[in-house]
């Protein structure tokens, strides 16, 4: 007997349809899975056998062949257990379900037949909808996240044993409540009020958030660089519903969505030993890296100078284009990664800075260390903030301005940018042509021209200053860039080493 079922395999952050064909016929008893399964798929044999038996079904002692079509696509992960079991039951005559070919199934099976959550339930539900399925059967745990996909019935199933009842219409699954999508920062997110004193750093954070500019903080350890970076998401404008769904899709594909509600913009701080693949994604099938996990949020690279050079190099293209593209034999995947880059570094290997008499770093070592700040990645950084150790009175002083107030100004500035540049765009993304069309006061133009001539700025540095000045003007609500805004921008801009 032959039966088929529809399921999916996760590829990057999207799900690709897979048709499970099960043939049960006479011959030596055996169970073969063909169609480029990976180790986890191949092991489905044992799980499915045990689950069937433990749920009171009979495991047919005949020759069983499971084919996963299309045969050319690599199938990965344990999410195909449920579909294989359902098709096997149908093929051996133990399950009468005429709708089986019209629904999609995904889920891992435990040996007792209960279902376990899979990664990428949201992508699976969306792919099922695109593929024209009437409903998608998923582990109960995945229900709320899959319910975020509109336009498809999600049928949560807690055990293989209840599949028969579902087929016979003996029980009606409750449609799960979709996960609440938090657009703004959730309550537990750290607040900018914790940053005491350090007005310059606050200003730099605010400008960075307002224009989407990438930020580099340089200062001794313990000066508050990491603290400031972790608070950046809380002053970014709330996510648009579409953006929140993008974030949820990525989190779902990484299995980070089940259970806890998703709060606002992501904040990712990978350790500096991370490999290029860990940072931008990789593997077969491609798995999203930190850059993609930080999509619509903040990617924080602490100790920038300690990162592997190849990791930083790998980040350069994605930072420019807003997507990671991974090319594998015969296919090309692109993963979204529009994040804000925030980096922190010490002034020298020992961290104290050359001005400190305690600093014992050899000048050559300092030069080598700082040389890492001039790579291609640093070239994409707009703002430099020199962070200094706050004094005792500053730390003991009152709390700073809370995130909510700053966020209000940032949101207003972003709205102004969207009106000028089009929806979803910010000043950091202005092309050189657009940057040069910014409305500029004569005094501001003169200041820029003078510094440009005096310090032999590069064309890139010139445009960077214009973008920053435009953001500061947007924050101030000014129509044109004034001299004060230009001066602030020139102070905040990242300097070239040399």
């Amino acid at each position: 007997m032959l039966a088929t079922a529809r399921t999916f395999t996760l590829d990057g952050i999207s799900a690709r349809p897979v048709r499970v064909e099960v043939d049960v016929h006479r011959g030596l008893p055996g169970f073969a899975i063909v169609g480029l399964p990976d180790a986890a798929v191949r092991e489905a044999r044992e799980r499915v056998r045990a689950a069937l038996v433990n749920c009171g079904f009979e495991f047919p002692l005949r020759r069983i062949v499971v084919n996963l079509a299309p045969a050319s696509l690599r199938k990965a992960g344990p999410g195909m257990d449920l579909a294989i079991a359902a098709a096997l039951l149908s093929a051996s005559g133990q399950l009468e379900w005429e709708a089986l070919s019209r629904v999609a199934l995904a889920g891992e099976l435990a040996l007792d037949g209960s279902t376990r959550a899979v990664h990428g339930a949201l992508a699976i539900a969306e792919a099922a909808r695109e593929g024209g399925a009437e409903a998608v059967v998923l582990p109960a745990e995945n229900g709320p996240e899959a319910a975020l996909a509109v336009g498809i019935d999600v049928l949560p199933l807690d055990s293989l044993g209840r599949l028969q009842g579902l087929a016979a219409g003996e029980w009606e699954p409750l449609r799960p409540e979709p996960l609440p999508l938090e657009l703004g920062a959730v309550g537990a997110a750290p607040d900018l009020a914790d940053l005491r004193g350090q007005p310059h750093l606050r200003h730099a954070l605010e400008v960075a958030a307002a224009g989407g500019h990438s930020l580099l903080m340089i200062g001794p350890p313990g000066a508050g660089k990491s603290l400031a970076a972790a608070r950046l998401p809380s002053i970014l404008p709330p996510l648009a519903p579409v953006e929140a769904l993008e974030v949820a899709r990525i989190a779902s594909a990484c299995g980070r969505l089940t259970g806890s509600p998703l709060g606002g913009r992501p904040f990712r701080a990978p350790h500096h030993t991370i490999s290029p693949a860990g940072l931008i994604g990789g593997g077969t099938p491609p798995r999203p890296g930190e850059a993609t996990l930080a999509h619509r949020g903040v990617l924080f690279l602490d100790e920038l100078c300690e990162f592997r050079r190849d990791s930083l190099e790998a980040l350069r293209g994605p930072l420019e284009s807003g997507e990671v593209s991974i090319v594998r034999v015969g296919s090309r995947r692109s993963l979204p990664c529009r994040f804000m880059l925030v980096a922190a570094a010490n002034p020298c290997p020992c961290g104290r800075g050359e001005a400190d008499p305690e600093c014992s770093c050899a000048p050559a070592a300092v030069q080598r260390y700082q040389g890492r700040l001039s790579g291609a990645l640093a070239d994409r950084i707009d703002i430099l903030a020199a962070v200094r150790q706050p004094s005792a009175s500053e730390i003991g002083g009152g709390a700073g301005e809370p995130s909510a107030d700053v966020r209000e100004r940032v949101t207003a500035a972003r709205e102004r940018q969207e009106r000028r540049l089009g929806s979803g765009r910010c000043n950091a993304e202005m092309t050189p042509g657009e940057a040069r069309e910014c409305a500029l006061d004569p005094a501001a133009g003169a200041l820029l021209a003078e510094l440009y001539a005096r310090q032999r700025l590069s064309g890139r540095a010139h445009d960077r200053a214009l973008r920053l000045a435009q953001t500061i003007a947007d924050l101030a609500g000014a129509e044109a860039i004034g001299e004060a805004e230009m001066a602030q921008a020139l102070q905040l801009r990242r300097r070239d080493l040399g």
Partner: protein
Amino acid sequence: MAEPRACPDCLRRAALLALFGPYIEKVATGAPGSRSPELLRLSNEELAEVTAPKVAAQLLARVAAIPERQFEDELSDARCWACCRHGDLYPDSLRDAPDAAWALIGHGDPRLLEAIEPFGTVTIVGARRATSYGREIARELGRELASAGMTVVSGLAFGVDGCAHRGALDAGGRTVAVLGCGPDNAYPAAHRSLWRRISEVGLVISEFPPGAQPWRWTFPARNRIMAALAGMTVVVEAAARSGSLITADLAADLGRDLGAVPGPVSSRASAGPNNLLAGGACLVRDAQDVLDAMLGPGARRIERSGSALDLGLAAVLAAVDAGESSCDGVAASLGLPAAEIAAALVRLEVLGYVSCSPLGLYSRTLLAPPPSALSI
């Protein structure tokens, strides 16, 4: 102007030095009697006999067999030119020395060589592993001396040398790099872009033919040219035993002025110049000190008083003077919003009162505010 020209004998000497490079390397130990400037006093035959007795005849014959045509081709291929001690272009300041280079191979504008005279030329040398203080001072000296019309000579090395060249280039002035390898060989390689800029607007010279590689002994050798070219040699930062001090000794031997920039007595990088000062070298705090020592007090003044400052800028400048280097620090000490301070610092930067490091920290330049602002 005189055409750069060199006689075949002198060019042969340059080729011989390149050919004998590895042999001289073994003999030139730096001990008295076998320092490279001393070895270079010897004639071709003596030098060959001292450094490579076994192969001397063979190598000398090989050098003698080089056709004149080949020198010309090599020079034009490397876009270099040569002048020798018998020509007009050769600087008089080099000619007198017993160990004078026979030929100078140049890359860049030959007219600059003609313009070199001791009282218009300053050599700035110092440690390769210079601290940010040394680099800053070297750049400032290079800038100010070049804008005062002096030619700045240095050795293109890391640290002080490179900064002195950059300062002179910043000011749009004249600068000459003396190399210990062929002038077409940008050494160290990391200074290739600097080498290119110098050869475009200034001059790169060497006593070695195009393509010659550097040896340990070639650096003291080029130091003697640097010391001889200038009326004054200034040591910015150098450890107690350093190649820069060789240049200082050579300059003193030639009867040139010797200056040193003081540094913290606890700083190892400043031990060399501090020792020189203790031994009677001229104290160099800024370019004015150099000009006073070379040309006589007050003979040439460096215009360094900047434009007037308003109250706000003067207060910010005072805070930087007091040692606040970060925007946050200045804002905290004055109690003003950071955005205002940021704008003020940029205005001061434009006026030339402060400079900003690549790490975003501010420091004062040597520029002093006009008297009216000082009273505030």
